[in-house]
């Protein structure tokens, strides 16, 4: 049966199980929007394409499915770019579908023509320019397969307007033929045996748990391996939630704002087991002195991540869950009692400096507020963040026991990610409680999506940590630029009025005694709410490994007198 290219697109999206798309119509994708009316897919009209990209990203992270965002050509597509790069850096499966001018106009600088496949080449896992209707079915099939398989990532499909309106016979391709794309599952047996030998010799092993654990759904396998070998588990920012924070083997977050005992454990270890992580500079500090005595085993799906930043002794290239499942029966049981004791010694020292052990002084500290929200929600909410101080405090104090509830822009560090990703997550988990922790700076970047939340009835709770500063930049200026504050004092709008103008009930909290009641109020309202917390202006995130320093050179929170 003959169909238009636009109809074929929707036929394919429905077959991929797409239930919701986030997008914005315009000249070059109008045939797609016209055909959409005949298909059972919910469309969320966003206020800015960047918001749409982050919503699709948040949906994908919370659901484990492929997210879909749409935009028109030219500025519509270029507005997606930040969201595409965010998904790329964090390996999130999102398919972006953009309209393009008619094929015969390409190269002629037509109205709203932009070389979108050229622009997005380095920030997509793969991309396509479609000029004919009969290419659409195959391309969409491939796009979803590439986005979700192997190391997941964003795929962009740019569809010329003529391809949307022309008709052709619709044949759904039974299989994907990609000769150069064959992700591997099992690691070679010889490599597994080499890994086992290193594990046998280790006295001070540490597991580094990355985003790959979640992507590969290897949480169970990780738990089995860790418990069987009694190996402590440190987590990257994006790996949080993959291993329960309350487990006795959990070391919490590593890296620049990781815990002291965690970073010391890594620096003193004799074996690093890196699971689905990529030795980002924010987790290693300077590479010259990184884990100097440790042998390294790296389980990783992407061969280009092996030896990229840190040369490893045994690379196990394959799907993490498959490789771990193969490895577990080959390893013996260990107890590593002395090593765990040594780590616990460092831990108690750090506790003395923890802000959580401070006595109340009437001021609002973000760390305390995160702990309050954690308590009120039983630690079970989906939490999204923007980027900066509040993000690190949330990573430190919203202690996650369950996976896929922690949505944050790690690799790209994209401000404005929090609110839209929460709206996207709501479509994946409407029965779950969803909180966005934002700073006053990042929130203003995508605040327009509040209306989207209202229009869709998205039940997301926004907590703005307003310190009237771009807090993390201010902290760096305090530590590394002799407190010469440059362009960090930020005048914010009246967030309560702003929220109310969007139709969102809102409150402002300035005193400690108002906190619990405000959180309870937000939880009792059905639909979006905003709470603005006026927090301590010049608090800093501790501990901190200055960029380029060794991982055990940490600036710690000063011990409080009295």
């Amino acid at each position, binding site marked *: 049966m003959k169909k238009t290219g636009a109809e074929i697109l929707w036929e394919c999206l429905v077959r991929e199980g797409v239930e919701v798309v986030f997008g914005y119509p315009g000249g070059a994708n109008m045939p797609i929007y016209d055909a959409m009316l005949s298909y059972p897919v919910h469309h969320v009209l966003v206020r800015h394409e960047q918001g749409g990209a982050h919503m699709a990203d948040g949906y994908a992270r919370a659901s484990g499915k492929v997210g879909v965002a749409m935009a028109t050509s030219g500025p519509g597509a270029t507005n997606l770019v930040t969201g595409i790069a965010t998904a790329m850096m964090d390996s999130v499966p999102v398919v972006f579908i953009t309209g393009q001018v008619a094929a015969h106009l390409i190269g002629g600088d037509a109205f709203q023509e932009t070389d979108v*496949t*050229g622009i997005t*080449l*380095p920030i997509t*896992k*793969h991309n396509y*320019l479609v000029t004919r209707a009969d290419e659409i079915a195959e391309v969409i099939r491939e796009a979803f397969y*590439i986005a979700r398989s192997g190391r997941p990532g964003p795929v962009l499909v740019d569809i010329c307007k003529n391809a949307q309106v022309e008709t052709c016979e619709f044949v759904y391709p039974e299989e994907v*033929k*990609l*000769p*150069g*794309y*064959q992700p*591997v599952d*099992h*690691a*070679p*047996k*010889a*490599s597994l045996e080499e890994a086992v030998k290193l594990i046998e010799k280790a006295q001070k092993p540490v597991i580094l748990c990355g985003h790959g654990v979640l992507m590969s759904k290897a949480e169970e396998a990780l738990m089995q391996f860790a418990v069987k070998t009694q190996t402590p588990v440190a987590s990257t920012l994006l790996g949080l939630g993959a291993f329960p924070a309350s487990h006795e083997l959990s070391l919490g977050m590593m890296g620049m704002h990781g815990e002291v005992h965690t970073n010391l454990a890594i620096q003193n270890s004799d074996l690093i087991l890196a699971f689905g992580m990529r030795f980002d500079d924010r987790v290693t500090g300077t590479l010259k002195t990184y884990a100097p005595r440790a042998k390294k085993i790296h389980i990783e799906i*992407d*061969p*280009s991540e*092996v*030896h*990229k930043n840190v*040369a490893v002794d045994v*690379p196990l*290239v394959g799907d993490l869950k498959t490789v771990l499942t193969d490895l577990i029966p080959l390893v013996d049981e260990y107890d590593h009692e002395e090593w765990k004791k040594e780590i616990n010694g460092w831990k108690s020292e750090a506790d003395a400096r923890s802000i959580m052990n401070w006595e109340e002084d009437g001021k609002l500290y973000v760390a305390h507020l995160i702990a309050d929200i954690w308590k009120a929600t039983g630690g079970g909410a989906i939490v999204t963040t923007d980027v900066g101080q509040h993000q690190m405090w949330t990573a430190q104090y919203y202690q996650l026991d369950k996976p896929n509830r922690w949505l944050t822009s790690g690799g790209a560090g994209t401000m404005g990610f929090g609110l839209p990703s929460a709206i996207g997550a709501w479509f994946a988990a409407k029965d779950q409680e969803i909180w966005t922790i934002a700073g006053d700076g990042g929130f203003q970047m995508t605040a327009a999506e509040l209306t989207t939340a209202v229009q869709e009835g998205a039940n997301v709770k926004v907590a703005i940590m307003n310190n009237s500063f771009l807090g993390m930049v201010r902290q760096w200026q305090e530590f590394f630029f002799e407190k010469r504050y440059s362009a960090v004092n930020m005048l914010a709008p009246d967030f309560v009025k702003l929220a109310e103008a969007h139709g969102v009930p809102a409150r402002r909290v300035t005193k400690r005694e108002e906190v619990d009641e405000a959180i309870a109020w937000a939880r009792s309202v059905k639909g979006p709410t905003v709470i603005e917390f006026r927090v301590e202006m010049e608090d800093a995130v501790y501990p901190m490994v200055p960029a380029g320093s060794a991982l055990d050179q940490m600036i710690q929170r000063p011990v409080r007198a009295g």
Partner: protein
Amino acid sequence: MNYTFIALVENRPGVLNRVASLFRRRNFNIESLAVGRTENPEVSRMTVVVDCPNGDMDAHKIEANLYKLVNVIDVQDVTRQPSVTRDLALIKVKVGPERRAEVNGLAEIFRARIVDVAVDSVIVEITGTEDKIEGMIELLRPLGIVEMVRTGQVSMTRGVTDGVRRVPGVTGRYDDVSLAAMVP
């Protein structure tokens, strides 16, 4: 040190751009890049010579990132493999009739050929390894080179390969991944 990679890629628009973009994105300088058809109309073949300041670590990065491109069917680092390597140059030398014999003599020694003769110039065609061509250029230079073009290096390993697609950075073999099955 220069490393040589052979990549089999899908013969379709934009693939060369993806490969070239990768080198820019990962901050490597291409010394030479030669692309052409193969015995299979759906497959093109690239020989890429790249300067790798950090030696094998850089070479691994390049190989693994090429491997990752969806349109790249296979990639091999052949730097240390026994292989035949050739480059072709056309060199136009400004010589009149009185010195043609001199050029001809040099060409014979290098097993090059004179492929065009004009009143005041000749074109020499030479095929060989980079060293051989450089040697010839040095000797022709005093006579007055006015124009030169080179194809860039092409390489082919000796013998028949085992048809196994290797995963970069891994010494062990993935028995289930066969190159033969992957070429369309």
